[in-house]
């Protein structure tokens, strides 16, 4: 149970042990470790398999750029594939396993791919697997898919939950390294509202990884002191474990906070919170990412970025190897060697690709040299230099230079610019508006320069926003040398890896250049360079440099690649937040919902609403029994249905009538007070999109109903007409959909029932005829509105009371209705009765329907200009041979009809050219005792009595039907007027 590579130094808490398991083996680490640090401390070098060739891979970096050390974290439903061991915070009881191998990690059967590598070069799959044709889906692709991919989902619902949040600030500082801390201090002291976000659990950035001094103390100590000062400021919010993953329009940033990921369990709190940050200004101080050098077998476990080696030694107190060699093309390499020496680790050699490196006592230095190749099984053991020297090493620290973390500067399509002196891309000029960049992220790669630039830029931003900067004196910071001479690629035999995760080699890049995939974008797509989970953070610039080398042109002429959000991958669950399961969307309930539940109603989703579909009674064997009974009882006596979901819009104003006259296709100007009129609404393109009734309560006050589905859209369109088309009409709109509990009371006894409900209103046919309306009171004083309208075709009313009385009202109505055997009915019975009656509804109003198709073309008034009237008259929309809404009976009355069947003229072939329309709605009519339907049929009105085929091959049916009127019962409308 020892940690063979643990050093006495570092910032982790040695007083406490954390137990974890790796591939089932029990290991230990300390608070403050990442999983990668703990694995290295335990001597685990070989931790993963690469994507394509299944090569052994180890920890390569110490941050989010990690291409290799991806693991599966946790287990069961919480199993989380592709987790970077380099950022996963160690907790007690952590369970991690390796991924992307068949059999054990060490004995991966798919390592065979590596032997086939010569035949699996860039784009090989585009050139083969074409014969025999059916083998692609049956043989080749399943094999490819099984060996590709990386980790595995548990296939169980994510057991954790997620939250969203919104924060507002003056200045967002992205990254709490030396530059970010400097900026946040300056802005915080000036009184600005500051958010300082850092992806790490320990703020300080490279200050925690290096041995620099700031203000006369260790850099990590200065960082802790700065954090303490910031924490004491009310106007500063320090967010650790929070990655700003994207820069969106107008100063909106996305951030992911890993709220409880570092704990063994979430304790019922959200696992992660996805923040939307609204900022006036943002300062990107995200530091820089180191890159590698391409040489043969530079991918073996033990080959690491030099900066990461320093991080493990200085921050985590872990020796990544016992005999470490260092390869460098810049001054960072020396620091790696001296830090290792200071920690008592043997440095095998410092290999500098440049000349003129000064001596470091006790250190073997090879100048003008590079690594030609590495050797070793499951990890390096030896390296061979270009000068022929062979050196033993179990770890090779590679310092290939630093690339500024400018990702967020590209999220609005900004293009980086190349700087020769840094051999790196720096943020371009077209930054997202409001964003500035400082420190290493902007190419200020040394400590003092980074802090200085951060302070200067912060002062500018504060002044832009009207704050008075304090201009505090910067602490003295050690400013290390940072010169670089670019060195990218050791040419020669074998494979030199560029993209470690996707196994893209320098040869692949050369081949792609040869095959004319010369744009960097084509290169990426052809070779998959930079397309892996790390998005090429360590690979892209190296790949571009090798492409430039292959093309024989400078890097800036070869191109740049930009980065897209997110900066690091974000769980889909976090983006979804709470919106999942039953909480996916809000639920709207009608005022009688509770009562309907008590009655054993079955409910159905109707948009956001839950509506009673039918009310089963004891002894009923299926839903049809219930629905038939509800229809029959309604038509025989009286039925009651909650129709609250219909949109209701209160329309008031001196010009309300004129307004309605323009938004309805039929006339409304002359609707008398106390009357209701049916209206159809067209879109401006002439299509009939909604219908409903509007009642005139007073000269200036109307109440409009819309369909349930279109309530929001109609309101929006009315507001458009009111504000944009006729801005001086005096008309005012307010939605009252939720305000009124509205019940349809339908059937021959509806008048008798309501007479016992409504106070002091004469309901006789003379006093309150079909399409009458009135404000009234019910049950001794409760305010109500009564409308005599009918969707069922029966004598019917709709009665509305304020929603707070809805529950009481339905109970009272049923109580009063007992003497009439009143039944409640649901949406199914409602549908049956409207189909029996020939009323069209949502299935007919598809958004493709003209008034002519519905048989109400005459309603579109030509005497006035209303929305959609002009375009409704276009030739192809008013053709006589077009579809018309008609009814259908099955020839064999025992046949059941199906909506969605297409009509064919008998004798015609079944093909698209002979399609005659389709069945829109069907029902089993209890009144008629057989199935009925309605639908659109070409020249339908002329074909009454004709027998056509209702062709329904997807359900294996082909039924002969007779064309009838859509009004299956009471076509004259006597019942509803009686």
């Amino acid at each position, binding site marked *: 149970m020892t940690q063979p590579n643990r050093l006495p130094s570092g910032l982790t808490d040695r007083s406490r042990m954390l137990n974890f398991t790796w591939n089932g083996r029990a290991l230990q680490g300390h608070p403050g470790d990442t999983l990668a640090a703990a694995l290295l401390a335990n001597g685990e070098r070989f931790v993963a398999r690469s994507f394509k060739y299944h090569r052994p891979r180890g920890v390569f970096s110490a941050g989010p750029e990690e291409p290799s050390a991806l693991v599966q974290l946790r287990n069961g439903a919480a199993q989380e594939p592709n987790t970077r061991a380099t950022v996963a915070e160690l907790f007690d009881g952590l369970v991690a396993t390796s991924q992307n191998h068949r059999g054990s990690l060490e004995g991966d059967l798919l390592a065979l791919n590596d032997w086939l590598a010569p035949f699996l070069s860039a784009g090989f799959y585009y050139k083969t697997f074409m014969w025999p044709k059916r083998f692609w889906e049956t043989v080749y692709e399943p094999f490819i898919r099984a060996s590709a991919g990386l980790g595995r989902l548990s296939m169980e619902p994510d057991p954790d939950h997620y939250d969203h949040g919104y924060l507002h600030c003056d200045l967002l500082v992205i990254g709490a390294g030396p530059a970010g801390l400097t900026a946040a201090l300056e802005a915080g002291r000036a009184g600005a509202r500051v958010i300082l976000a850092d992806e790490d659990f320990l703020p300080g950035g490279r200050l925690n990884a290096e041995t620099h001094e700031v203000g006369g103390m260790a850099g990590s100590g200065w960082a802790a002191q700065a954090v303490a000062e910031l924490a004491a400021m009310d106007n500063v919010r320090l967010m650790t474990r929070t990655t700003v993953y994207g820069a969106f329009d107008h100063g909106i940033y996305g951030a992911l906070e890993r709220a409880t990921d570092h704990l063994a369990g979430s304790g019922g709190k959200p696992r992660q919170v996805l923040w939307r940050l609204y900022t006036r200004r943002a300062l990107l101080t995200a530091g820089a990412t180191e890159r590698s050098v391409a040489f043969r077998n530079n991918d073996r476990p033990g080959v690491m970025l030099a900066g990461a080696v320093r991080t493990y030694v200085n921050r985590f107190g872990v020796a990544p190897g016992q005999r470490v060699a260092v390869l460098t093309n810049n001054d960072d390499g020396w620091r790696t060697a001296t830090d290792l020496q200071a920690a008592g680790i043997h440095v095998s050699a410092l290999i500098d690709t440049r000349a003129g490196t000064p001596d470091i006592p006790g250190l073997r230095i090879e100048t003008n040299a590079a690594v030609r190749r590495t050797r070793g099984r499951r990890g390096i053991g030896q390296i061979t230099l270009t000068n022929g020297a062979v050196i033993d090493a179990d770890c090779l620290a590679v310092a290939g230079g630093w690339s500024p973390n400018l990702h967020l500067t590209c999220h609005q399509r900004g293009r980086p610019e190349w700087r020769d002196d840094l051999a790196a891309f720096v943020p371009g000029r077209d930054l997202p508006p409001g964003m500035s960049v400082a420190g290493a992220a902007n190419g200020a790669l040394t400590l003092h320069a980074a802090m200085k630039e951060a302070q200067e830029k912060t002062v500018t931003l504060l002044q832009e926003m009207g704050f008075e900067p304090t201009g505090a004196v910067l602490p003295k910071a050690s400013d290390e040398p940072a010169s670089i001479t670019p060195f990218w690629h050791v040419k020669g035999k074998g494979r030199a890896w560029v993209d470690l995760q996707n196994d893209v080699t320098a040869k692949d890049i050369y081949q792609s250049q040869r095959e004319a995939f010369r744009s960097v974008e084509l290169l990426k797509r052809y070779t998959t360079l930079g397309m892996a989970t790390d998005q090429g953070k360590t690979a892209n610039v190296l790949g571009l440099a090798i492409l430039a080398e292959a093309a024989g042109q400078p890097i800036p002429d070869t191109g740049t690649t930009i980065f897209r959000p997110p900066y690091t991958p974000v769980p889909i669950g976090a983006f979804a937040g709470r919106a999942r399961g039953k909480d996916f969307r809000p639920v709207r309930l009608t005022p009688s919902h509770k009562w309907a539940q008590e009655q054993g109603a079955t409910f159905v989703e109707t948009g956001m609403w839950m509506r009673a579909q039918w009310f089963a009674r004891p002894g009923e064997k299926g839903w049809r029994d219930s629905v038939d009974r509800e229809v029959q009882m309604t038509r025989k006596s009286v039925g009651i249905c909650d129709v609250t979901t219909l949109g209701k819009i209160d329309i008031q104003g001196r010009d309300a009538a004129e307004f309605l006259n323009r938004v309805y296709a039929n006339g409304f100007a002359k609707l008398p007070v106390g009357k209701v009129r049916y209206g159809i609404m067209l879109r401006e393109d002439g299509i009939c999109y909604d219908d409903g009734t509007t009642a005139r309560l007073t000269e200036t006050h109307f109440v409009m109903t819309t369909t349930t589905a279109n309530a929001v859209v109609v309101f929006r369109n009315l*507001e458009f007409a009111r504000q*944009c088309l006729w801005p*001086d009409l005096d008309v005012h709109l307010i939605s009252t959909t939720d305000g009124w509990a509205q019940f349809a009371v339908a059937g021959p006894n509806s008048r008798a029932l309501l007479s016992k409900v409504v106070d002091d209103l004469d309901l006789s046919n003379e006093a309150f005829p079909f399409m009458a309306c009135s404000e009234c009171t019910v049950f001794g004083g409760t305010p109500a509105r009564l409308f005599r309208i009918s969707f069922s075709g029966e004598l019917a009313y709709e009665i509305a009371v304020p929603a707070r009385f809805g529950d009481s009202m339905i109970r009272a109505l049923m109580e009063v209705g007992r003497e009439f055997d009143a039944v409640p009915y649901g949406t199914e019975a409602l549908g049956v009765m409207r189909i029996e009656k020939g009323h069209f509804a949502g299935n007919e109003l598809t958004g493709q329907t003209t008034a002519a198709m519905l048989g109400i073309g005459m309603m579109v008034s030509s005497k006035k200009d209303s929305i959609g009237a002009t375009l409704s*008259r276009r030739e192809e929309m008013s053709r006589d041979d077009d579809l018309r809404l008609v009814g259908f009976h099955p020839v064999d009355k025992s046949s059941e009809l199906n909506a969605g069947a297409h009509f064919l003229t008998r004798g015609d072939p079944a093909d698209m050219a002979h399609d005659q329309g389709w069945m829109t709605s069907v029902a089993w009519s209890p009144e008629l005792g057989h199935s009925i339907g309605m639908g659109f049929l070409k020249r339908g009105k002329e074909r009454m009595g004709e027998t056509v085929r209702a062709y329904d091959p997807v359900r294996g049916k082909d039924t002969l039907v007779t064309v009838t009127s859509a009004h299956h019962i009471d076509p004259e409308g006597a019942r509803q007027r009686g």
Partner: protein
Amino acid sequence: MIINHPLLGPRDAAEFVYLGDAGLIGRPDGMADNAADAFHDYTYLRDNPAGEHRELWYHEQGDRSWLVITRNTLTHDITRVELARDVARTQGRSR
């Protein structure tokens, strides 16, 4: 995106519903002789510029106002936000 509402100040565009080209304010007269052609062009044809675009947004989850927003379709930069009712009046629309 953020829309700086002329009455309410900056609001997340998620509160709004987009309609399209502000030319939709200029609805033709349906009783005019050329109504068919005029409505065809009004309803269907668009300049669709790459650059400054005047467009209609509706503050559905706010104060229900229709706004005319001048926004660059290449950069999303918003340079002007007006109440559509005011714009309509300026264009001579009335009753």
